[in-house]
């Protein structure tokens, strides 16, 4: 049975799949996995669940088992002892699943990135869908990450490359250097 109303990449998707895709972001059940963090991000995540920030507006609910969860909130770097357990918890989650890396320990290993007992960031172990950097991220930042995942807000950061203005010196492109009769000839001249 195909559902003509929804197409992904030109292919018709079955009705059930389309329904699942639509229903999945309506209520995300969150499993909260700390694999060796300092508890700072845990407190901020708990803040998000309080009535003041109220993540339950978006259908987010904390559950105790990864088997009930749709989303895994990873906090802390993956350490040698907890990395395997984290992987097992990820594999226990049912199939449409998202992984959030909360805090920069989870995003990149934190300040303990080169410690002997730390493997590194969480994405060395799990495929991470959304990164929420910060040490710890504000509750608003976590809510913003959730909003980005749900499509309520757009990304605000992008990679930046800034170059200083070059000196106003006539430059010859080295590819255009042609040697003719013992003299170097510049076929093209570029001014920066």
């Amino acid at each position, binding site marked *: 049975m195909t559902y003509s109303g929804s197409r992904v990449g030109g292919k018709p998707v079955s009705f059930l799949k389309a329904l699942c895709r639509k229903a999945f972001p309506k209520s995300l059940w969150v499993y909260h996995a700390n694999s060796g963090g300092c508890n700072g991000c845990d407190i901020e995540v708990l803040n998000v669940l309080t*009535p*003041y*920030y*109220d993540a339950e*507006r978006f259908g987010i609910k904390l559950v105790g088992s990864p088997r009930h969860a749709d989303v895994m909130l990873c906090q802390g770097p993956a350490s040698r002892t907890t990395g395997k357990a984290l992987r097992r918890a990820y594999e226990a989650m049912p199939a449409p699943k998202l992984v959030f890396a909360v805090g*920069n*320990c989870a*995003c*990149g*290993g*934190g*300040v303990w*990135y*080169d410690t002997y007992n730390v493997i590194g*960031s969480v*994405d060395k172990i799990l495929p991470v*869908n*959304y*990164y*929420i*950097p*910060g*040490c710890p*991220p*504000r509750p*608003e*930042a*976590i*809510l*913003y*990450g*959730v*909003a*980005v995942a749900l499509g*309520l*807000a757009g*990304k*605000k*950061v*992008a*990679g*930046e*490359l*800034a*170059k*200083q*203005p*070059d*000196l106003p*010196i006539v*430059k*010859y*492109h*080295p*590819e255009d*250097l042609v040697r003719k009769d013992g003299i170097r000839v510049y076929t093209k001249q570029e001014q920066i």
Partner: protein
Amino acid sequence: MSWISKLKEAVICLKAGRATRPYPLAPDTPPERFRGRPVFDASRCIGCGGCANNCPAREILLHDTSQEIRIVKYIGRRCTYCGRCADVCPEKAITMSRQFETATDAIGDLRQELWIFMGTCQRCGRCFKGAGVLEALMMKGFRADDLEADRWVYASTSFLEKEPLVRDIEIELE
């Protein structure tokens, strides 16, 4: 009687008002002294490398691709926003912004990269002598009108021109 108590409860709740903040739907300003993502100003940076030396997470990397160009890379994935780079910067090229909305689905979005033109003494063609930590970061001299060196600059930076921003990080310090 139970409905009266429920009515009382409703009145109390209405008096208290709404405690929930409308954050993702309405903008939010962090407090005045909040430290967010550092912002690098390429026009002010002199490429001294003080930020790279002071970063506790070793998040700011320096690459000398040639004698002329120094690349300052801020990767940003494990930056704790401690502000030491902004404190140590002599030219105030790094400012700690109040930007906290940095959630992204690609970690390469957090990267900032500066290409710094390193000046050399035009009279002697060498960098002047520094002292202390900066001494280690000094580079050899370079004349801007030296075509042989220019060819070398081109060879060393041409691979950067094709893909100026790499999506993910392949530099692993360990």
